[in-house]
């Protein structure tokens, strides 16, 4: 049984197909149901928990090594005394990132997915049993580093933030349209390396994002130098305030 909501529990019950409109024509049954119906159902359940707790939930996605954990470390320090942060860390193996988050001063729960290439809503639900959401203002979900699979799975988050580091190339949105279309905010990271890299044009990265018909704002940040961090913190404070009063 689910401890936090008292629902009938486990995980499998969420996977049972719900009410489906079916019209029978001979033996062909018209179903027209979302293939990730089970995950979407669980994600809606997670979202209800977040809403009840007044927590803003941000799903961070990027390729491996784009700087998700470094951005979180700098964010936790910048928000110290203003907002209480917790992090669900997704990696194939190790507790390394969760340890970094704890060292920066926030609660962290590590999910090791083994060989799974993404987090899904059931994994998040299981992790929620290990977090007391009540004192939390912002819960970050650091997804598995991967620009493909995580885009398909709703976790119950309020917003998707997709990171693009300047070392990756400014055409990533053009190459991975599904992921970048999912972004509610795109953060260009490692801005301190811009001159060293030489051929990354933040304007071009933004144009590629617009070519996906995305209206998502774009921020340019260096977690190391602190450049652009104020804009990112402002964005978080604004959205956390909305979730707190929802």
């Amino acid at each position, binding site marked *: 049984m689910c401890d936090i909501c008292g629902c009938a529990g486990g995980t499998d019950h969420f996977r049972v*197909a719900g009410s489906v409109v079916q019209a029978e024509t001979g033996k062909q*049954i018209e179903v027209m*149901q979302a*293939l990730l*119906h*089970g995950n979407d159902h669980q994600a809606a359940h997670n979202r209800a928990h977040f809403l009840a707790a007044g927590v803003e939930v941000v799903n961070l996605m990027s390729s491996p090594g784009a700087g998700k954990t470094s951005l979180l470390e700098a964010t936790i320090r910048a928000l110290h005394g203003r907002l209480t942060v917790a992090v669900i860390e997704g990696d194939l193996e190790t507790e390394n990132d969760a340890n970094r988050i704890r060292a920066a001063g926030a609660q962290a729960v590590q999910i090791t997915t083994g060989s799974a290439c993404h987090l899904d809503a059931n994994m998040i639900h299981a992790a929620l049993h290990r977090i007391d959401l009540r004192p939390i203002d912002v819960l970050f979900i650091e997804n598995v580093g991967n620009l493909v699979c995580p885009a398909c799975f709703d976790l119950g988050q309020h917003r998707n933030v997709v990171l693009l580091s300047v070392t990756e190339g400014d055409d990533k949105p053009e190459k991975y349209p*599904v992921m970048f279309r999912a972004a509610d905010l795109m953060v260009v990271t490692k801005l301190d390396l811009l001159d060293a890299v030489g051929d990354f044009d933040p304007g071009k990265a933004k144009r590629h994002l617009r*070519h*996906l018909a995305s209206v998502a704002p774009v921020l340019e940040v260096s977690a190391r130098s602190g450049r652009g961090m104020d804009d990112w913190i402002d964005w978080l404070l604004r959205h956390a305030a909305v979730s707190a009063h929802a």
Partner: protein
Amino acid sequence: MRSQPHLTKPMHELAICQSVLRQVLAVAAERNAWHVGRITLQIGPLAGVEPSLVRQAFPLVAAGTPCEHAILEIEPLLVQVRCQLCAATSEVPPNRLLCGDCATWRVDLISGDELLLARVELLDAAEAGVNV
């Protein structure tokens, strides 16, 4: 020699196939059907799911189930946008969602991100070639 379908790395298409199987078996169970003849999916180019990998992975999850011999059909779909400014409808590539008439990116996606179980065809025992 023909190579067997195999999965060389983790991929979310396997999770998608498990989801397909669960949903199809639920439809079959509701109707007391034991065999599934055909499963039709709709996967848009912007769904983030690769149809060829779904085809590879499906036999692995369907083995030993009433879907084991089902034909998996994946309907191809186009990416289409409608312009917010001039209302034109255009067919576009997945990474260039621009109006075909006025070239603005202020468009709405009207198709291309579908990820649906569209239809299921159930068989009775005789059709499935099973002796009862």
